[in-house]
């Protein structure tokens, strides 16, 4: 079968596929299909021009090729995904819930978007200003968080990275008793790592 015949055959062939696609799909379970392997081969043998990229992509979809054990293949997929996430600075983000005493609903923030405690405090103030009129000094609330062990901790004591890796959720506590109990060092403490 010479090339012209093949071209003519291709032109009249009824196929399921987008117009303009050249590469026939490799079927995996169609016992009644009349697939021409010679056709597939011709397509694969095209010299490298732009089509090489697309043939590579199609080959990527061939089941069981390249012949690598599933266990190894899965390990690599896992490592690749993790590496990509790490490179993108953790594309998935680090979302934690934020509750505020008295607020009817909670919010969620991505800790990764903040560079430090100052931005975090500003972000939270912004987010919750609809619930109270207070901003800046004189406000009677403390930002606390629940850590990995489930303990309620005051935000600001530890380095920022350590905080983001151990913070499970944030809680803004209102009310004078809890704040006064912390003493005069309180305001300074919350601003320690700004």
């Amino acid at each position, binding site marked *: 079968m010479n090339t012209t015949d093949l071209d003519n055959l291709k032109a009249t062939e009824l196929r399921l596929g987008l117009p303009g696609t050249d590469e026939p799909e*490799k*079927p*995996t*379970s*169609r*016992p*009644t*299909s009349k697939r021409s*392997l*010679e056709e597939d*081969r011709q397509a*694969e*043998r095209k010299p490298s021009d732009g089509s090489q990229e697309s043939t*590579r*992509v199609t*080959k*990527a979809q*061939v*089941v*069981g*090729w*390249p*012949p*690598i*054990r*599933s*266990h*190894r*293949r899965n*390990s*690599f997929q896992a*490592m690749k995904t993790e*590496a990509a996430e790490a490179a993108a600075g953790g594309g998935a983000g680090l979302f934690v819930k934020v509750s505020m005493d008295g607020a009817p609903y909670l919010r969620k923030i991505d800790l990764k978007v903040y560079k430090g405690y100052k931005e975090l405090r500003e972000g939270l103030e912004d987010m919750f200003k609809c619930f109270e009129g207070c901003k800046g000094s004189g406000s009677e609330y403390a930002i606390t968080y629940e850590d990995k062990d489930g303990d309620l901790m005051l935000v600001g004591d530890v380095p920022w990275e350590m905080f983001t890796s151990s913070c499970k959720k944030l809680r803004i506590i209102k009310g004078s008793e809890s704040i006064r109990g912390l003493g005069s060092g309180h305001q300074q403490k919350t601003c320690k790592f700004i």
Partner: protein
Amino acid sequence: MTYFPEEVVEHIFDFLGSHRDRNTVSTVCKAWYQVERLSRQNVFVGNCYAIRPERVMARFPRMKSLSVKGKPHFADFNLVPYDWGGYALPWIEAAARSCAGLEELRLKRMVVTDDGLELLARSFPNFKSLVLVSCDGFSTDGLAAIATYCRGLRELDLQENEVDDHGRQWLNCFPDSCTSLISLNFACLKGEVNTGSLERLVARSPNLRSLKLNRAISVESLNKILARAPHLVDLGTGSFTVDHRAEAYHRLMNSFPKCKSLRSLSGFWDASPRCLKALYPVCINLTVLNLSYAPAIPGDDLIKLICHCFKLQKLWVLDCIGDKGLAVVASTCKELQELRVFPSDIYGAGNTSVTEEGLVAVSSGCPKLNSVLYFCYQMTNSALIAVAKNCPHFIRFRLCILDPGKPDPLTNLPLDEGFGAIVRSCKNLRRLSLSGLLTDQVFLYIGMHAKCLEMLSIAFAGNSDKGMIYVLDGCKNLRKLEIRDCPFGDGALLKDVAKYETMRSLWMSSCEVTLGGCKALAAKMPRLNVEIINESDDFEESKENLVDVHKVEKIYVYRSVAGPRNDAPEFVWTL
């Protein structure tokens, strides 16, 4: 008629190492059959459906070690549907009933369940060794049963299995009285283990020589373990990465020099180049090195490590080693017997990969090289011819050119001549995997020259039935033939049907074989199981509609004295 008393004959049989030799002597006469069967301790079953478990147990009542293989090889590459079969439970149950003296069980590509593992653990008081390779269907609960009930366990070796993680407690189940461990490999487990328990287990196992940790084990834990097990010969590290400013890093640097017996290293998940430096003190004694799970190590750092490995016999790496790295291997590792180069980037453009040059270099520099698995993006005939000339002692040659059907890039010709040179030169070749653009010609060469060939894997190759016929005609010792995406049809399948009874199995998928051809094969050869695997949803309906001329997607043909199996799922149709 025996000329010697039975005890003498039995003693002579003791010297027969291989299963095949023992099988042969058992066919000489009834007396020898009896002596042989009552004295055989190691039983190997290459296909779990070739014979019923009960028959094996009845024939070999004094069996101490049993090896069974299940799914066809292409199951490794997801070509066999998940619940095709290969169940271990019938074997464990039969052994529990008839061979209570069982000490060792090795299973490959089988479905093992937690129930099976528990039955195993409780049924054999002298059980010493469990090796599972590429199995699935069980969880850490099954491992807990093994740990709990196998007193005197020496070996638990889990290689590349899919194990469900039901928690870290299983390791705690080794009782304090368990001090007999020689080999423990849980590298394939995804979940964490209790590191304290692990350290205590290691501390009370004075005979421990092989320990392979999983990725969840940190460098901190590794340091503690190495401190307790300086006599290790074979180590699989866990996640081999730690910040170089951390104390654990400095401890790591000092951990390895104490391990004077270390000969084999693997693991290295997430390994960083800095951490590899810890290995320099032990490099010169290494005989086995597996870095194939360390994609973050660039070629230059691999070279820095390998240039000290003078005694290396087996090397598994990723293609980031590059041709340059393989040249270093060639000039350094003069004892090298086995090389495996895996692709680090399966679908990419492959600019950090290896080419034919790397393979030629290693073949030229390593005179003892006899086993190769090589993934690359291109290969030339001239390179293969050079390799064939350099290495006439190949036993296994598996080449995978990642682009299916790719010709020699220099000449644009098929790789027939290259592979032809390989089979002509390597007279002891037992296993061959082909790739690249190949015509019927390569099969003519294989049939003519590959007289010792036992296993052949073919993909996207050949032009006509002639190709397959050349192979079936010429390869007298062929045991396993697996073919995918080749234009071989009924003509080839039916040319020599008796041949399949001399083989363990034949696999053909995405070829030109029709239902009519399969039916004809099944009709002519009652002692073959001809299985058709059809995964389309409407299989039941299409079963009626399937006409003989319709092509079948996957067939698996194997000899069997057990008849058609009774555990076949819906999508498997035994003719």
